[in-house]
């Protein structure tokens, strides 16, 4: 894997149709994009499809990608969020291409792998459920700031909104996310809480 010392320079090379530079950008960010896709999808195959879609979109829309602090990662993460929210529609353009990609014969589903980590799986399911109730813009903000630890200022640039608007929307999105998670928590409690011992 070729590491990128200067992503901004690599991105300029990508814009000049440098395939090696584009592959270097892929190698630099693929794991983080994939982990984020896993967070929002129900199995590893979907997460792989979304990751592939995010990088194919990065190429297709390379001329309009917002570069934040010399990195395309925020754009990739927001695109990953959007693709995960509607797999069928988001990946329609690449359906044939992605379906043609080979995979390891034994690819465990996220559920299989997580059998020993039921609590992790429940958490992931709660996150997915809570995220699905947010608007696209709120989901993008949550992705960048709460999950990926970008600053509100960086998220604002990535989303093309003002710093103030990002902070206002973040406050609202956080509240909605918290409410959604609490609601799911209550639902779980209704099934699992035992009567107190008297």
């Amino acid at each position, binding site marked *: 894997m070729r590491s990128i010392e200067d992503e901004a320079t690599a991105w300029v090379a*990508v814009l000049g149709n440098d395939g090696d530079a584009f*592959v270097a950008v892929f190698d630099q960010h693929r794991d983080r994009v*994939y982990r984020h896709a896993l967070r929002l999808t129900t199995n590893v195959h979907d997460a792989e499809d979304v990751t592939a879609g995010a990088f194919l979109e990065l*190429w297709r829309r390379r001329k309009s990608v917002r570069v934040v602090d010399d990195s395309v990662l925020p754009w990739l993460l927001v695109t990953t969020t959007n693709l995960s929210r509607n797999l069928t529609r988001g990946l329609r353009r690449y359906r044939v291409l992605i379906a*043609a990609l080979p995979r*390891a014969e034994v*690819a*465990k589903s996220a559920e299989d792998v997580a059998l020993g980590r039921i609590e992790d799986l429940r958490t992931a399911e709660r996150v997915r459920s809570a995220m699905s109730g947010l608007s696209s813009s709120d989901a993008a903000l949550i992705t960048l700031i709460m999950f990926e630890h970008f600053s509100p200022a960086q998220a604002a640039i990535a989303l093309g909104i003002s710093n103030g608007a990002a902070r206002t929307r973040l406050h609202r999105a956080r509240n909605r996310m918290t409410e959604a998670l609490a609601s799911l928590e209550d639902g779980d409690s209704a099934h699992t809480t035992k009567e107190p011992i008297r």
Partner: protein
Amino acid sequence: MSTTEMDPVFTTALRDVLLATVKVAPRVRRRWRWRMGTGMLVGLTLAGGGVALASGVFSPPGAPVDSPLGNLITATRTGTATIDIGIPPTTATDLSLSLTCLTVGSFEFPNGSSMSCDAADLSHSIPIDRQASEVVPLTVGVDTVTIRTSANATWMLQVTYVNQVTTAWGVNANGETYGVTNQNGTPDLVAVVFNHGNTHGYVKESDLNCAAGGGVASPAEALAWDKVRQNRNISIPVFQSDGVTIIGAFVLGDATGSDAQTVPLSSLSLGC
């Protein structure tokens, strides 16, 4: 396999696909002047974006017409830099930018289009061979232009405000639109100049897309396409605006070696 790392088989295949995708993209070292073989597209390129047309030479339907406003500003810089261009006139709609590379390097305009210059480009005695022109819409409240470059790349920028009006495409007897790609899309017949810039005509958008790799839909096709293109140029017919009368051939590709071939699109089975 860890749950936090992609399947290595999938990863390798995806990497190959991405590389192949870049390779089959039109080799547009200068997007505004998509020079392929002996011809070039006129006006806006397939990928969109603005282009300054040489006034009085050939102004096909759909082309933007730019009227300069105010003074021409010239600046020379090395590396990424921002130029102050002053407050725009009230009728200004766009900025006309002309960039000349003075050293080897990559250069990116504010709208994301880019050019690269190598030693061969710099050896050209005619400055226009090292120039790129773009017309970019104004952004309210922004009166600077930033050019991003690779390390230590030196450039000269000429910039002026313009008022831009886009003309309408023509429509021939068969109902096909002809002209240049603009913000409304791409016409059925796309304007080109060829024969060393001496002749203009139109190529079918479908031919252009196919010859540029637009029909690739799978890794296998992408790799097959790459093989087809190796050391080979592809020619497509050039028509008058009627879309029927053939007046020449437009060549796509940059194969120039002694064993380079030019083959007609019709002789290839590209599935598009």
